[in-house]
C-alpha cells in the first residue's frame, strides 16, 4: 500500500467519473486543501502517539540505575544506556515463573498466554459470531430486540464486565452452583484461563456477529435461488455462497478482534488480578513493570508486543487479504498497478457502503 504514495499525482481518467476531474472547484488544488484539513489530526497523532512511541523505544534501551555508585558512594539515580540488553534479557531466562506452559521466563509466559488466549478467544468468537449473524439474517421480526440485546455486552465497560464475571466465577458463585462443582476459577489455576476466555467471548462475539450480519445482508437473494435451482444443499450454499461472500467483512472483523485481544489488559487485571502467571498477558506484564518504575524493561516488552501486533496485522492484510482501507481512490491505483481484473476489494467497498446504507 505504501507504493500508492509513489504514484504520479495525476490520476488517469476512468470512465464514468470524468466529470469529477480537474475542471471543477472540488478537485482543483485538492492536495493542498486536503493537507490543511488533515494537519490538525496528523499533528495530534504525531504528538500523542508518534513521539511517545519513539520515546518508548528510546526508553527500552535504558535501565534505571540501582544500588550505590562505587565511585562516589552515593545512591545511584537516573538511567544508564544498556543497548539491547532489555531485549536480550528476554532470552536469558533470568526471571522464571510457572504458568500454564511450564516454567519459563516471565516474558515468554506472558507471550504464550497472550497468544493462546487470543487464538482460543478469536476462534470461539468467530464461530459464535457467525452463528449469531446467520440466525439474525434469517429473522423476520424482532431483529430490533436482538440488536439491542447484542449491544449490551459491547457497551458494558470491560473492567465492569471483568468484575461481573469475577462474581459469577467466585468459588462459591453461581457458575459453580450451576455446574455443581467446586472449581477455583479465580485462584490462578488452569480454570482461570478458561474464565478469561469465556468472559472475553461473551463480550465480543456479538461484535463479530454484527459485522458479519452487515456482510450477509449484502448477498443478493438471487444467488441462493440460483443455487437452489441447481440443487445445492443448505450446507453447500453456506460453504459456496455465504462464506465466500461474507469473507471480506468477516476477515476485517476477525482482524480487529485479534489485534484487540493481543493487547488485552482490563479483563485479566480486573478478574484474576495482576501477577497471576496463568493469565498474565504482555500488556499486564508491561504495565506491572512500568508501575514498579522499571521503565526500560517495561518499554522493551511493550515494543515487542507492538511489533507482534504489527506482524499479525501484516499477515492478515497480505495472506488473508483483509481490506481494511476500503477507499476507492487508493484501490483504483492499486488495481492499476497490479493490472489485474477488478478484484473483490471494490466489491468490499460497495458492500460495506451498502451495509451502512441498509442499516439506517
Amino acid at each position, binding site marked *: 500500500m505504501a507504493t500508492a504514495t509513489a504514484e504520479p499525482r495525476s490520476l488517469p481518467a476512468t470512465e464514468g467519473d470524468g466529470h469529477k476531474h480537474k475542471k471543477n472547484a472540488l478537485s482543483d488544488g485538492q492536495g493542498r486543501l486536503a493537507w490543511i484539513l488533515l494537519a490538525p489530526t*496528523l499533528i*495530534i497523532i504525531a504528538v500523542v502517539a508518534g513521539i511517545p512511541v519513539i520515546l518508548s523505544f528510546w526508553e527500552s534501551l535504558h535501565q534505571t540505575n540501582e544500588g550505590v555508585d562505587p565511585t562516589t558512594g552515593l545512591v545511584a539515580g537516573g538511567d544508564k544506556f544498556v543497548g539491547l540488553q532489555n531485549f536480550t534479557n528476554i532470552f536469558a531466562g533470568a526471571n522464571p515463573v510457572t504458568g500454564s506452559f511450564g516454567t519459563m521466563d516471565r516474558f515468554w509466559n506472558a507471550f504464550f498466554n497472550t497468544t493462546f488466549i487470543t487464538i482460543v478467544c478469536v476462534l470461539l468468537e468467530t464461530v459464535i459470531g457467525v452463528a449469531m449473524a446467520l440466525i439474525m439474517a434469517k429473522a423476520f421480526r424482532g431483529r430490533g430486540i436482538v440488536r439491542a440485546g447484542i449491544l449490551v455486552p459491547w457497551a458494558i465497560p470491560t473492567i465492569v464486565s471483568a468484575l*461481573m464475571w469475577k462474581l459469577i466465577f467466585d468459588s462459591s458463585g453461581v457458575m459453580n452452583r450451576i455446574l455443581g462443582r467446586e472449581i477455583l476459577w479465580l485462584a490462578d489455576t488452569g480454570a482461570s484461563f478458561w474464565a478469561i476466555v469465556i468472559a472475553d467471548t461473551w463480550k465480543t462475539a456479538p461484535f463479530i456477529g454484527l459485522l458479519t450480519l452487515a456482510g450477509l445482508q449484502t448477498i443478493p437473494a438471487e444467488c441462493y435461488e440460483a443455487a437452489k435451482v441447481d440443487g445445492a444443499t443448505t450446507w453447500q450454499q453456506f460453504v459456496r455462497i455465504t462464506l465466500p461472500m461474507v469473507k471480506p467483512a468477516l476477515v476485517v472483523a476477525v482482524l480487529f478482534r485479534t489485534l484487540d485481544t493481543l493487547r488485552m489488559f482490563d479483563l485479566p487485571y480486573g478478574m484474576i488480578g495482576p501477577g497471576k502467571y496463568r493469565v498474565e498477558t504482555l500488556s499486564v506484564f508491561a504495565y506491572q513493570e512500568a508501575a514498579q518504575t522499571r521503565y526500560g524493561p517495561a518499554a522493551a516488552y511493550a515494543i515487542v508486543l507492538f511489533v507482534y501486533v504489527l506482524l499479525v496485522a501484516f499477515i492478515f492484510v497480505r495472506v488473508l487479504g483483509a481490506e481494511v482501507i476500503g477507499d476507492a481512490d487508493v484501490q483504483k491505483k492499486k488495481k492499476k498497478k497490479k493490472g489485474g481484473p477488478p478484484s473483490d476489494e471494490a466489491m468490499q467497498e460497495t458492500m460495506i457502503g451498502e451495509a451502512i446504507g441498509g442499516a439506517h
Partner: protein
Amino acid sequence: MSTTTEVHEEHLSQEEIEKLAHPKQPLNRRIGVVLSYVGMALIVLYCIIPFYWMIVSSLRLPTEGQSTEFIPSPASIDNYKGVFSAQNNFGRSLINSVIVAGTTTILVLLFGIIGAYALARLRFRGKGAVLWLIMACSMFPLVVLLPPLLKMFSSTAPFTWFPYWINTYQSVILPGLSFGLPLAVWTLTAFFKQLPVELEQAAMVDGCTPGVAFRKVILPLAAPGVLTTAIIVFIGAWNEFLLALTFLQDKNRQTATVAISKFTGSTGFDTPYGTIMAAGVVVTVPLLLAVLIFQRRIVAGLTAGGVK
C-alpha cells in the same frame, strides 16, 4: 378484475379455497422459522443473562453479596446507598468520568470532522499512507505509551522540565486522543462517503466556496453520523481503564472505571461484590440507554468503522 376472480372461484371446491386462503408452508420451512425464533431467544439470553446477574446481585443486602439466589430476597437498595456513601465518593468519580470522556469526545470530533472530510472527499497524493497511518494508530497497544508518559508526567529525569501531570485530567485526555481520534476519523469518513458529492457541486455551482458548502450543506446532513461517532467515541473514552489506572491515583481524580476496581465497599472486609455490582450498574445504565435509543445508528457506525 373482480369478475375474473369470481369466475375462477366457481371452479374451486370449498376445501380448495380454504387451502388457498391458508397456504400450508412446507414442514421444514416452518421448523426453520421456529428455529430462528429459538436462536434469537438464545442470542438475547446469551447477551442478557450475565448482565441480569449483575443487576440481581446489586439488589441484595450488602451482607449477601455472594448469594446465588436467582431473585434477591429481601431486595434492597443498600448497595446503591453504599456506592454513593462518603467513603466511596463515587459521585465525584462519575463527574471525573464525564469530564474526561466529554472533553475527549469534543476534541476528537473537532479535529476528526475536518480530517475525515478531506479523506472522504478529496483526492491527493499520500492518501493511502494517511489511511494506513490512522489505521495503524488505532491498532497499537496503549501500554507502549505508558513507560515514557509515566516518566514524563511525574517529572522524572530526564523530563524534569515537564510539569507534574499525575492526577490531572489532561494526563488521561491527551493520550486518550491516540485511540479516539483514529476511531472518529474512520467512522466519520465512512459517513461522509455516503453523502453524494453532487450536493457540494450543486452548492458550488450556486456560488458557495468549498468551505461554505461543507458548513452549510454537508455538516447538517452529516449530523446523524457525527452524533453516532460522538456516542461511539464517548463510550470508548468512558470505558477506558489502563490510562486512568496509571495516571489518576488520587481518589478525587479517579474516573468511575478505576474507582470501581478499587472499591473497598460499605461493609465488611471481604470483596464488596454487592457495592461493586451496584456501581457497575450505575456506570453502565447511561451507556445502555444511549445504546438502546440510538441502536440503529450505532450498529451502522460500528459496521462502517469496523473498529471496536
